């Protein structure tokens, strides 16, 4: 299997809102596996979204088990048509992106979220996420709406962490 080519900034597809997934068929499952394989080849990615490989559909992967330091997580997730239903708190964290090589910056995200989505079979799934995993999900869901972390950068010296 060859990794899928990563779409990189400033490709217009990264600024485009994706369409809902309507067909839950073997091809979709095959694509999700291919997407996972592609993320595995990149530099320590903990998530990836379909538009990052040019597929303009609302599907993304979130995998906080790959964090360098252990964090709370729901395991490796394929999220289809995901929506955040609840947000709580704020946190500043550093983010990078497979589609924006050689740059990281600080972004404010909700500290914890609740999320509803479908799995690759089309079944509804719900998750509560916090911290690093919540950050991954928000970053990936932004991709589905054509929003990059560059659009959400805050001051390099921003810091909301509790002392």
């Amino acid at each position: 299997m060859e990794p899928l080519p990563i779409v990189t900034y400033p490709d217009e597809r990264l600024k485009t809102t994706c369409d809902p997934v309507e067909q839950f068929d073997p091809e979709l499952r095959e694509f999700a596996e291919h997407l996972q394989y592609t993320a595995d080849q990149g530099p320590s990615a903990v998530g990836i979204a379909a538009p990052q490989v040019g597929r303009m559909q609302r599907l993304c992967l979130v995998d906080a088990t790959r964090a360098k330091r252990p964090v709370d997580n729901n395991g490796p997730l394929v999220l289809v048509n995901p929506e955040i239903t609840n947000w709580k708190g704020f946190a500043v964290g550093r983010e990078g992106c497979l589609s924006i090589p050689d740059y990281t910056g600080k972004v404010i995200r909700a500290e914890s979220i609740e999320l509803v989505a479908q799995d690759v079979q089309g079944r509804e799934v719900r998750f509560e996420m916090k911290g690093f995993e919540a950050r991954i999900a928000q970053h990936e869901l932004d991709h589905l709406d054509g929003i990059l972390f560059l659009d959400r950068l805050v001051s390099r010296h921003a810091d909301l962490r509790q002392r």
Partner: protein
Amino acid sequence: MAQPWLLLTLVGADRPGIVAHVTRVLFGVGAELGETAMMRLGNQFAIMMMVRNAGKPEEVTGLLESTRAEFDLKLHVDEIDASLHQHREPDVSVTVHSADRSGIVADVTAALLEAGMNILDLRSDVGGSEDEPIYIMQIDGETTDGIETIERRVARFAEQGLNVHVTPLQTMRG
């Protein structure tokens, strides 16, 4: 072929227009800007700027002479052995605050060095009042010996009235 990078440092009393004027002159001769850091320190505005394709250091100094004079800036230009796309990702953040006294930066950074931390970004400030100044420092860096080693090294500062907090940083990439 691209010329070597130059590092321009400019410092002068802060007032609107310094950045716009300096960069306009450089753009006018086809210069390329690389990474820059600009900030207000005290009542001064300080610029550090990677520039290339604007000529040799003495030529860049000449180009900027009228702007330098207009804004009463101190200008220094050095050729440097730098390149872009050399970013490093910090994995630890250290914040320090205390009543101001001499030696805070020297003491803390020496301890961090001993603990295997390489400083990537340091910003410090003096707040409080003239009578009771407080010193605040934020440092991002990368560790070689782990967060715990840093925490052990800085623990002793508590006895000296320094509040030192060590926080792991984890960059999310997706």
